[in-house]
C-alpha cells in the first residue's frame, strides 16, 4: 500500500521549544560586593576526554574540557594529531554548540495519521525500533534485503553500513562522491591508477609552487591543509590561484588568474601546451613513469596561450609565465585536485587534465607534490561473514557511468521511483547524517521517490529538511556523547584516534552504534553485534594493534611508524601504477574503448542570458555545508549568507549593500527567502557568489530558518558527468527579483 508521504513539521508537536535564556542579572547579584577579584571566567575544567571532531570530515583529534557539573566548557585540538597540530578550526572550536542546541531531536518520532492529517507522535525507543525491524523484514521478504538502501555521511554511517551489510544489503551510498569529489577520484584513477581520497595527500607544507583551481583553501577550513597553506605562504612558495572570484587564497597568491567561469579545461590544456612546447616538463619522470606523451603532444599542439586567451580571458603572457613557474618548481609543485569539483558535467575530464599536468611535472610521489599515504589498518571486530547481496550499487547504475568507482547517490534516487523497467528497485531508505534535499540538487525526483518508498528512516541530531519526510525519526546523540569507530585516516604517518563520550547522551538521544545494534538484534543478527558496549569493540581492535584503551584514553591519539618506506617515490626505482598500462596514462585506452575522450578536450558551456548571472557557490570557514547552520556558537559568527554582486551589476539592478533581494533562476525557480546583497569588487560582473548551506526551510531550526538563500534550490539544471555520474551544478544562472514566493515570505516573518 502506498502512502503519500507529506512533509511534517516537527514543531507542531510541541517539542523542541527553546528554553528562554534567563534574563541576565543586571543588578550584579552573584558578584561579591566587596572582593576585588573578578568572577572567574568560568568554572575550571576538571576532566579531559579524548574525541575527534565530527563537525566536518577532517576529523581532527581533540580534547573535551569538562567541569565538575558535567558541562563541556570548550574543545581544543590534540597537539599530537598531524591533522590539526593542536589547533581546531572555528567549527571544531564551536562544536560544543551542537550539544547544547535546544533545537535538537530529543525523542524517537513515528509518522501517524491523526484526523486525516499526517503527523509525528513521540515514541519510545523499543516501539520505534520494533516498527523499523518489522518493516525491514516485510520489505526484505518481498523485494530482498538489497532493496533497503543507506545514504550516509560521517561517523554514524559506519554503524549502519555494518547493519545493512549484516542484513544482506550493500546498497549503500554517500553524496560525497557524485555531489562532491567523485570526478577528481575518477580523473586521478584513470591517470595515476589511484584516487586522491580524503584527506588529500597534498604535500603543501613542502611545496614550492601551489596551483589552486577553484579551490578556496582558507574559506574551506580543511584544517591541516589550511595550516600547511599558511606555512607555504610563510616560506614564500609561489601560489597561483585560478578563480573568477578574489578568494582569500587568491589574495595571498603571487598570481591570481581571474578566469572566465566554465573555461578551466582550456587553461589546463594551454598550460600543458606550454610545458610540452617549451620542453620544460619533467623529462626524467615522464620518460620513466608515463605513457602517451606523443598522443598528448599532438593533442595539445593547437592549444596555444593565444587560443586560450580568447576563451579564458587570461593573458597569454600570464599563462606562459605561470607554466614556467610550475616547471621551475617541479617536481615540488602541486596542481591541487580540489575537493568539490562537480561543476559542469565534464568534471572528470577536467580533473584528468589536472592529473596529466601533475604527471608532466612529476609531482605524484614527489616531496612538495603528492605523497604516498599510509594508514594504520584497523581490523574488523570478529563477526560472521556478511551474506552476499544479489545486487548492489553497480547494478543500480544500470549500465551508466562506467568510471564511477563508488556508488552514485542520484542513481539511488532514480531507482527509488517506482517503474516497471526498474530491475533493481529500492524500497526503503536509511538516511544517516546527511540532509539530502540540501545535498543533492534533484528535488523533484526526490519528491517522487519519497512518495513511492515503503520505509524512510532518518537518523540525525537535528530536525533538518530530510527529517520531515521520514516515517521514523531517530534522535542520534552528538559526537561528544558517544563512542565511534577508531579514526584511521591515511596520511603522511598512520594514526589512531579515539572518540570517548565526554558526557552522557542528552534527552532521549542514543549513539548510532547502539541504534544499529538494537535494530540488528531485532532482525536476528545477534552474531554480528556481540558486544554490550562499543568500548569492547574499540578495546579489542586496539589490542590487535598492540595498543591499549587506557593508553588511547590518556593520549587521545597514537602516531604509528610508517611500515612502507618513504612517502615519496624513489627516482631510481621503478614503480607500478595501478593503471591498465602500469604507467601514468596521459592517453587512456580504457576511456577510448568506453567511448570517452582519451585525452581531455575543451567544450564550451552555456553562457548566461542577458540579465542573468552565473551562480557560483562556495564555503565559509565557520560553517560545514548546511549542517552547522543552527549551531548557536557558529551562527553567532555567521548567521546568513549574502549574494556577492559586482558594483556595476548592483547599480544596473539598483541593488544596495545590506538590502535583501530574491533570486530567480533560468527555470523560473525563486529562492524561498530573500538574501542580503553584498556589493563587492571581489566578484566578476558575469557571476554572483554565495556561501552554500543557508536558507533553511525547516522552522524547527530556530536560528537557521529563513536565513539567507539556499543555492541547492536554485540548482535545477544539473549536468551529469557521463563518466562517473557526478552532478554538475555550476550551470545555473540567476537574476534578481524584488518579490519571492509570498507564502514562504510570510512564513519567514
Amino acid at each position, binding site marked *: 500500500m502506498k502512502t503519500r508521504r507529506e512533509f511534517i513539521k516537527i514543531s507542531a508537536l510541541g517539542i523542541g521549544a527553546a528554553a528562554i535564556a534567563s534574563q541576565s542579572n*543586571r*543588578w*550584579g547579584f552573584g558578584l561579591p560586593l566587596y572582593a576585588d577579584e573578578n568572577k572567574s571566567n568560568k568554572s575550571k575544567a576538571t576532566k579531559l576526554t579524548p574525541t575527534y571532531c565530527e563537525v566536518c570530515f577532517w576529523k581532527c583529534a581533540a580534547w573535551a574540557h569538562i567541569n565538575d557539573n558535567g558541562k563541556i566548557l570548550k574543545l581544543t585540538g590534540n597537539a599530537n594529531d598531524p591533522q590539526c597540530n593542536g589547533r581546531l578550526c572555528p567549527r571544531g572550536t564551536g562544536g560544543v554548540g551542537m550539544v547544547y542546541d535546544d533545537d535538537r531531536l530529543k525523542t524517537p518520532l513515528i509518522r501517524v495519521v491523526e484526523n486525516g492529517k499526517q503527523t509525528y507522535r513521540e515514541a519510545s525507543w523499543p516501539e520505534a525500533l520494533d516498527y523499523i525491524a518489522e518493516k525491514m523484514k516485510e520489505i526484505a521478504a518481498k523485494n530482498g534485503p538489497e532493496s533497503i538502501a543507506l545514504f550516509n555521511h560521517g561517523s554514524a554511517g559506519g554503524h549502519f553500513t555494518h547493519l545493512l551489510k549484516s542484513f544482506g544489503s550493500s546498497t549503500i551510498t554517500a553524496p560525497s562522491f557524485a555531489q562532491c569529489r567523485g570526478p577528481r577520484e575518477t580523473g586521478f584513477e584513470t591517470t595515476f591508477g589511484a584516487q586522491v581520497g580524503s584527506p588529500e595527500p597534498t604535500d603543501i607544507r613542502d611545496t614550492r609552487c601551489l596551483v589552486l583551481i577553484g579551490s578556496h583553501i582558507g574559506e574551506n577550513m580543511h584544517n591541516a591543509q589550511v595550516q600547511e597553506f599558511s606555512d607555504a605562504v610563510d616560506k614564500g612558495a609561489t601560489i597561483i590561484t585560478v578563480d573568477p572570484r578574489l578568494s582569500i587564497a587568491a589574495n595571498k597568491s603571487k598570481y591570481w588568474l581571474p578566469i572566465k567561469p566554465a573555461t578551466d579545461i582550456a587553461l589546463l590544456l594551454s598550460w600543458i601546451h606550454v610545458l610540452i612546447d617549451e620542453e620544460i616538463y619533467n623529462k626524467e619522470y615522464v620518460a620513466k613513469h608515463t605513457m602517451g606523451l606523443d598522443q598528448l603532444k599532438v593533442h595539445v599542439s593547437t592549444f596555444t596561450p593565444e587560443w586560450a586567451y580568447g576563451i579564458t580571458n587570461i593573458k597569454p603572457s600570464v599563462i606562459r609565465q605561470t607554466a614556467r613557474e610550475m616547471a621551475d618548481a617541479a617536481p615540488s609543485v602541486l596542481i591541487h585536485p580540489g575537493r568539490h569539483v562537480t561543476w559542469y558535467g565534464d568534471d572528470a575530464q577536467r580533473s584528468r587534465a589536472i592529473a596529466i599536468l601533475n604527471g608532466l611535472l612529476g609531482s605524484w610521489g614527489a616531496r612538495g607534490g603528492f605523497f604516498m599515504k599510509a594508514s594504520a589498518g584497523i581490523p574488523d571486530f570478529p563477526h560472521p561473514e556478511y551474506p552476499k547481496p544479489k545486487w548492489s550499487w553497480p547494478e543500480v547504475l544500470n549500465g551508466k557511468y562506467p568510471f564511477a568507482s563508488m556508488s552514485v547517490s542520484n542513481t539511488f534516487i532514480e531507482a527509488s521511483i517506482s517503474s516497471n523497467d526498474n530491475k533493481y528497485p529500492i524500497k526503503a531508505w536509511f538516511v544517516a547524517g546527511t540532509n539530502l534535499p540540501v545535498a543533492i540538487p534533484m528535488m523533484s525526483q526526490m519528491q517522487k521517490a519519497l512518495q513511492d518508498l515503503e520505509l524512510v528512516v532518518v537518523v540525525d541530531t537535528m530536525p533538518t529538511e530530510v527529517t520531515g519526510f521520514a516515517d521514523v525519526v531517530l534522535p542520534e546523540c552528538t559526537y561528544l556523547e558517544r563512542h565511534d569507530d577508531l579514526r584511521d585516516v591515511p596520511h603522511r604517518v598512520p594514526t589512531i584516534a579515539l572518540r570517548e563520550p565526554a558526557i552522557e547522551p542528552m534527552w532521549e538521544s542514543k549513539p548510532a552504534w547502539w541504534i544499529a545494534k538494537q535494530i540488528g538484534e531485532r532482525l536476528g543478527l545477534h552474531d554480528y553485534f556481540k558486544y554490550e558496549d562499543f568500548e569492547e569493540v574499540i578495546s579489542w581492535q586496539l589490542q590487535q594493534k598492540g595498543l591499549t584503551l587506557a593508553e588511547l584514553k590518556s593520549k587521545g591519539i597514537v602516531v604509528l611508524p610508517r611500515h612502507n618506506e618513504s612517502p615519496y617515490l624513489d627516482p631510481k626505482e621503478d614503480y607500478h601504477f595501478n593503471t591498465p598500462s602500469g604507467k601514468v596514462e596521459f592517453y587512456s585506452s580504457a576511456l577510448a574503448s568506453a567511448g570517452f575522450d582519451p585525452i581531455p578536450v575543451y567544450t564550451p558551456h552555456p553562457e548566461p542570458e542577458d540579465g542573468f548571472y552565473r551562480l557560483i557557490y562556495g564555503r565559509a570557514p565557520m560553517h560545514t555545508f548546511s549542517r552547522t547552520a543552527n549551531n548557536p556558537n557558529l551562527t*553567532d559568527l555567521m548567521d546568513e549568507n549574502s549574494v556577492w554582486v559586482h*558594483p556595476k551589476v548592483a547599480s544596473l539592478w539598483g541593488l544596495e549593500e545590506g538590502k535583501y533581494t530574491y533570486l530567480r533562476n533560468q527555470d523560473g525557480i525563486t529562492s524561498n527567502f530573500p538574501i542580503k546583497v553584498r*556589493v*563587492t569588487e571581489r566578484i566578476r560582473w558575469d557571476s554572483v557568489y554565495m556561501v552554500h548551506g543557508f536558507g533553511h526551510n525547516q522552522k524547527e531550526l530556530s536560528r537557521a530558518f529563513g536565513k539567507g538563500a539556499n543555492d541547492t534550490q536554485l540548482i535545477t539544471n544539473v549536468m551529469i558527468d557521463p563518466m562517473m555520474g557526478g552532478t554538475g551544478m555550476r550551470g545555473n544562472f540567476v537574476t534578481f527579483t524584488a518579490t519571492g514566493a509570498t507564502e514562504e515570505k510570510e512564513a519567514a516573518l
Partner: protein
Amino acid sequence: MNEELFVSGRNIPNIDPFLNIWHWQIPIYLFLGGLAAGILFFAALFTILGKADKMEATVKKAPIIAPIALILGLLALFLDLKHELFFWRLYTTFRIESPMSWGAWVLMAITPLSIVWVASYAKELKPGWDWKFGFLNDFESFVIKNRLALAWIIIVLSVILGIYTGILLSAFNARPLWNTSILGPLFLVSGMSTGAATILIMSKSTEERRLLSGIDLLLIVIELFFITHMIMGFQAGSQTQIDAAQLFLGGPFTVPFWVFVVILGLVFPAILEIMERLGVHMPVIIPVVLVLLGGLIFRFIMVEAGQITRYLY
C-alpha cells in the same frame, strides 16, 4: 570601490554599527546639571556683589530649582549606570584624570550646599517657618552669618559643575565631535544661559528682569560665537573632525541643529529679548522656553552625534 566589513559576525548591542551606549539619561543629566550650575552661579554672584535684596528671585527664590534639578539629574545618571549596585564605588576613590569622578564629587558637594542655601532663605520666603529642632535653628543662624563664604564656595563649585558638563564629553579623544576644548566653556555658557532664563520667569522685579535678560543676551551671543568657532575648528582639523562637522553641515543632524538649536534656541530668543528691550512687549515665557528647549536639544544632539563619530583605520 572600498569595503570595510566585519567577517566574524560582530554585532554588539549599543556598539554596532554605531556606538549608542549613552541614551536620554546623559543629555538630561547634562542639561539639569548646567541649569543648576547657572542658577547657583547667579545666586552666589549677586550675593558676593551685595545685591541679594535687589535680586530677590535670583538669590532667594530660583535656587529652589537647583537641588531639584541636581537630584533629578543624579537620578538620570543613576539610571544610565548598568551596574547600579556598585555606584558607591564612585565615592571610595577620586580619579584626578577622570571627569566623571570630578563630576561625582562636585555633585556630592554642591547638592547638599544648594539645599543648605535654599533652607537658609526659608524663613524669609515663608514667614513663620520653624525648623522644629534646636540644632537646626542654630545651624541656620550659622549659615546666615557665613552666607558670603558659602557663596564663594558655591560660585567655584558651580563653575566647575558647568564646565564639567562639557568636559565630560570633550575628554573623549576617541569621539572627534566631542574632542574640542571649546566644549567646556560652551556648555558652561549654555548652562548659565538656561539658568538666567529660568530665573527670568521667576522674577517679578522689572529691574532684575532687565538685568537678567541683558545677561542672557550676552550669553547667547557668546554661545553663538563659540559654536561658530567649534565648527571652524572642526573644518580646519583632521579628517575625522571634518567628518564630525559634516554631521551638522549636510549630514543627518543638520536640520535639528540649525533649526532647533541655533535658530529657535538662540537667535530667535535673542531677537525677542532685543525687541523687549526696544519696548515691544510680549510674554517672557516665550524666549525662556525657547532657550531651555534649545539647551536641552543641543545636549541631545551633541551626545547622539558624538557617539557616531570615530577614528578611521
